[in-house]
Each structure stands twice: as structure tokens, then as C-alpha cells.
């Protein structure tokens, strides 16, 4: 059966560790070899998503001195890799680094003739897993995978390094798209428009915050949208939902989102879901990036759990207007949080705590209409989109940046949250062992 896509997601810290190891000089080998552990999911539309969960190196003593190739490893190293597949019930990818590749690295003749036999032997040990080989370059990644039961290796169509910034490699189709429309944002980088054009973005919640996000993404040239909102437009939404007017009352919010996007980008690909996303989880799992624009802590946690499991960066935005007992003036606050796999989660940031969740449960059914206004939604959404653009294009040069911004609507400030100073990384709540389809163990 033909696959739609083969997507590989690699956390930034794992790839950094691999490159650091693979670039170490060896006594006689001119290259090094390592292995990635992986797990995978095959979606109902036959898209394969592979998640890299760990890296392990080959011991210095397990290289064979062979002047015909950059690196050759002995049977001890291969046995170790095979044992690892068995012990961890994991997929395995042979990985090496081509320092001379400027963009997408190519596999060498030796890679293509020697390695398939090794990959085949991986398949004999880990029959239910997908194995393959990956070559890393300075600015891109290439990969071939061996599906269960397949005789030949299949090229990956999209490889994503998940971090800040993200790096996307499209080995089969890397044509740049230049359009006059985006001339004024060309400072974002020469590949930026390609990245924005290809990234698949999920927006959960197309109301007050989400409508701003959607509109700005369309202006930027994002063309792949998955929009979720189970709601219809009511009169009380018209004070803040951009794109919606009086005639839209009673219409689905996702329809307004689609209209808004198509008005800016007639050729955009939009999947709109007028339902809770939890009933369509595979549509989330396929996204490269998620914006969470929901009201509740429980809703946020559900989204973050899914994003962490499937190695998807998430930006959460939200605002609240509440009354402090001793003051007659309402207090307007908000937040923008980046939840990036491997990095601190919303629990680490002290935002999504058991105390907050318990308070919300205690208030269940008493919430009523919550105060919301257009300008604070706009500020939070705009800055969230700015963070997204930086992550996708890397235009500022920021690296591994943590984002937890606190908005004070009374003062009109958006600053780093004080808790940022105290957060520890990496995140202890979402280890990579929990990535991919859930696995239970007998007790």
C-alpha cells in the first residue's frame, strides 16, 4: 500500500548529542557511526511517523581499520545494536554525519550498497519495528526507512528536528518558493518561505485568541492548516473574534476561520473540524506545530500530553480577567508558553499544577461567561505567532530559548515570567521513553 508520507521527528537534544559524538576524531576512522532508537505510528491514512527516542554511540574499539570507507564497525557493535532492538523493543537507525554537506546530505555509494543488509538484519530482530539509516549534515537530514516486510528502503519525505529553532528537511522536494507577496519578510531567511509553506500547523480553538493566530499565519504564508473548534459564533463572540461579523452568528467558528484563510491564501489546504480534537487525535499527531487557544487548564493538559507524546511543539496562549478582593479594579493577565519536547513543560513552569487543576474542577459548572477583550487576545496571539516564526525560521539566532511570557493588561507589559529563572531542564515529567503510541507493562 502506498504511503502518503514518511515523517521522522528527532528531538534537538538527541541530535546535538549524536552530532557531538559523530564529529569526534577517531584514531583511524575518518567518520563515526552511531545508532538511534525509535518508535513509530502508522496513521489511518498510511502516513508513517517515526520518533527518535535515544542515541547510542559505537565504542572506539569497535571500528575496523579499512581505508576504502570512512568508517566500518565490527560484529560487536552490530550485536550491541541488535541486542538494543530486542531489549528496548525499539526501532534502530544507523546514523552518521557528512560534514561536507551544506543542505540536505546525500547517502554515499557505500552507504547505499553496504547498509541495507545491516538494516535488513535489524528487521529480523525487531520485526514489528521500522528501521533505517540517517545521514546528518550541517543544515539538514536525509533518511531511508525499511518498513515491516518491505524489501527495499523508502525515502523519508519530511524530517523534522524538533527544537528551538526547528529544522525541516524535505529530501525529495526542496524547491524554494519565492513570491513578491513575501518580499518584505525575506529577512527571515532564504529558506523561510519554504518552511512556512510546508509546516503543518494545528490550531485548537478558533475563537478570540485562535482567530488572530489563524489570520496572521495566513498572512505569513503558512498554507497547511488543521483548525479545531466545536463551537458556533454567538453574539458575545463578536467583540473579539477577528474575521467574524453580525451575519455570522450561528455559523461554525471553523467555517469563519476557513473563509478568513482563503481570503488571504486561496490555495491554502485547510482541514476544519467542528468537534473536540480528542475525537480526531491523528489529525493532531500529523501536525508539525500546535497552537493551543483554549480556556481551561484541563483542556491545556490534554493538548500538552498529546503534543509531548508525538514530539510536537506547542504554544499555549490564554488570558484571564479577574477581580482581586481588596481592589475594585479588574486585573487582566495572560500568558504565552512554549512547551517544546525535552524542554520544561507547563507543569515545570508552575502553570499547569495540580492546585490549578483542582481549583478549576471545584468551580465546574459555575464559570459562566468569562470576560474577554480583543486587544489582549491580539497581543498574546501576535507575540505567539512571532515566537512561532522564530522557531520555524530561526531568524533571530535564538537557540534553545525558553518562552514563558507573562502579560499584565493593566500595566500593558509582556515580560519573561519570573518563574523562568527557577525552572529546571530537562523536563522530568515527559521522558522520551513515553514518546509514541502508549505502551503498558505488566506488573
Amino acid at each position, binding site marked *: 500500500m502506498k504511503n502518503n508520507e514518511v515523517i521522522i521527528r528527532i528531538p534537538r537534544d538527541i541530535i546535538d548529542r549524536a552530532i557531538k559524538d559523530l564529529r569526534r576524531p577517531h584514531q583511524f576512522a575518518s567518520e563515526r557511526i552511531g545508532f538511534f532508537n525509535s518508535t513509530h505510528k502508522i496513521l489511518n491514512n498510511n502516513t508513517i511517523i517515526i520518533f527518535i527516542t535515544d542515541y547510542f554511540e559505537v565504542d572506539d574499539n569497535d571500528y575496523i581499520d579499512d581505508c576504502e570507507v570512512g568508517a566500518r564497525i565490527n560484529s560487536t557493535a552490530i550485536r550491541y545494536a541488535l541486542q538494543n532492538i530486542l531489549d528496548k523493543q525499539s526501532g534502530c537507525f544507523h546514523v552518521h554525519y557528512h560534514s561536507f554537506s551544506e543542505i540536505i546530505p546525500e547517502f554515499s555509494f557505500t552507504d547505499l550498497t553496504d547498509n541495507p543488509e545491516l538494516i535488513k538484519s535489524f528487521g529480523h530482530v525487531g520485526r514489528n519495528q521500522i528501521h533505517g539509516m540517517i545521514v546528518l549534515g550541517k543544515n539538514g537530514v536525509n533518511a531511508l526507512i525499511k518498513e515491516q516486510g518491505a524489501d527495499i528502503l523508502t525515502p523519508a519525505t519530511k524530517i523534522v528536528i524538533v527544537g528551538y529553532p526547528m529544522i525541516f528537511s524535505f529530501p525529495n522536494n526542496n524547491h524554494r518558493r519565492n513570491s513578491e507577496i513575501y518580499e518584505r519578510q525575506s529577512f527571515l531567511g532564504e529558506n523561510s518561505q519554504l518552511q512556512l509553506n510546508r509546516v503543518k500547523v494545528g490550531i485548537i480553538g478558533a475563537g478570540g485568541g485562535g482567530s488572530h493566530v489563524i489570520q496572521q499565519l495566513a498572512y505569513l504564508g503558512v498554507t497547511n492548516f488543521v483548525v479545531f473548534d466545536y463551537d458556533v459564533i454567538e453574539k458575545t463572540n463578536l467583540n473579539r473574534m477577528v474575521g467574524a461579523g453580525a451575519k455570522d452568528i450561528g455559523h461554525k467558528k471553523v467555517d469563519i476561520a476557513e473563509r478568513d484563510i482563503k481570503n488571504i491564501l486561496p490555495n491554502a489546504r485547510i482541514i476544519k473540524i467542528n468537534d473536540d480534537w480528542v475525537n480526531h487525535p491523528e489529525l493532531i499527531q500529523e501536525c508539525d506545530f500546535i497552537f493551543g487557544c483554549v480556556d481551561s487548564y484541563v483542556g491545556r493538559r490534554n493538548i500538552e500530553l498529546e503534543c509531548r507524546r508525538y514530539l510536537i511543539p506547542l504554544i499555549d496562549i490564554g488570558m484571564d480577567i479577574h477581580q482581586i478582593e481588596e481592589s475594585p479594579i479588574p486585573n487582566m493577565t495572560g500568558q504565552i508558553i512554549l512547551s517544546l519536547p525535552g524542554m520544561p513543560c507547563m507543569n515545570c513552569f508552575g502553570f499547569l499544577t495540580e492546585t490549578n487543576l483542582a481549583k478549576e474542577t471545584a468551580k465546574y459548572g459555575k464559570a459562566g461567561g468569562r470576560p474577554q477583550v480583543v486587544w489582549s487576545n491580539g497581543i498574546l496571539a501576535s507575540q505567539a505567532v512571532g515566537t512561532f516564526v522564530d522557531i520555524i525560521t530561526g531568524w533571530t539566532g535564538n537557540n534553545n530559548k525558553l518562552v514563558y511570557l507573562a502579560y499584565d493588561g493593566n500595566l500593558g507589559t509582556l515580560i519573561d515570567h519570573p518563574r523562568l529563572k527557577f525552572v529546571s531542564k530537562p523536563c522530568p515529567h515527559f521522558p522520551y521513553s513515553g514518546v509514541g503510541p*502508549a505502551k503498558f*507493562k505488566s506488573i
Partner: protein
Amino acid sequence: MEFPADEIDELRRVYSNVQMAEEGGYTYFLLPYLDLPDGCIPTNTDALFCAMPRDGYTSRLYFSDTISGCPQRNWNGQARILDRNWHAISWKVNPSQRLIQLIRSHLDAFRL
């Protein structure tokens, strides 16, 4: 989270196919085809037991289906946990019990 070995043994004796997994700092026990009290529809369902505080409850039992044929309860917990959608009722139990007793106390909500 670590649980007393004797309580885990007891859980395994009563629910021989019990399995365990962790997610987001929480530990869960999967109880496949858990038999529900008499009168419940369905008669059994997969259940997920969280024996630690979550969402303001000291412990919680989630079900893969909502349950009828029993006293009507407030199904206020829709959660996506460990790659699956779950439902839970608002039901508080005394936390000072053994794991097996906690599960029984949660099931008491469905007894006629």
C-alpha cells in the same frame, strides 16, 4: 510513583491482567475488561485507575465508555490519557485505603 509491593501484589491477584504506565508525572493502572457492578451497561469495560491526586480528586477511576443502568452520576471528567479517550464521574473516595479498596470504592458509585 512507587506503591507498596504488597498492594501491587494484591492488585495483581485480583486483576490478573492489570498493566501499568506513566504519563506526564502520573502513574496509571490499566484494568482491561473490568467487571462492573450488577445492572451496569456495559457489564464490563476497560478502566484506568489513577491512584494519585489528579484534577482535585485524590484518586480517580476512568472508563473507556460512559456507564448506564446504574445511579445517574455526574460525568465531568473527559480526559485523553495514554493515547486514549477516557470518561470519569465526579466521585470522591477516602484516600486512606489500599489500592484494591480504592478501586472498589470508586465502583461503589455504580451500585444500585
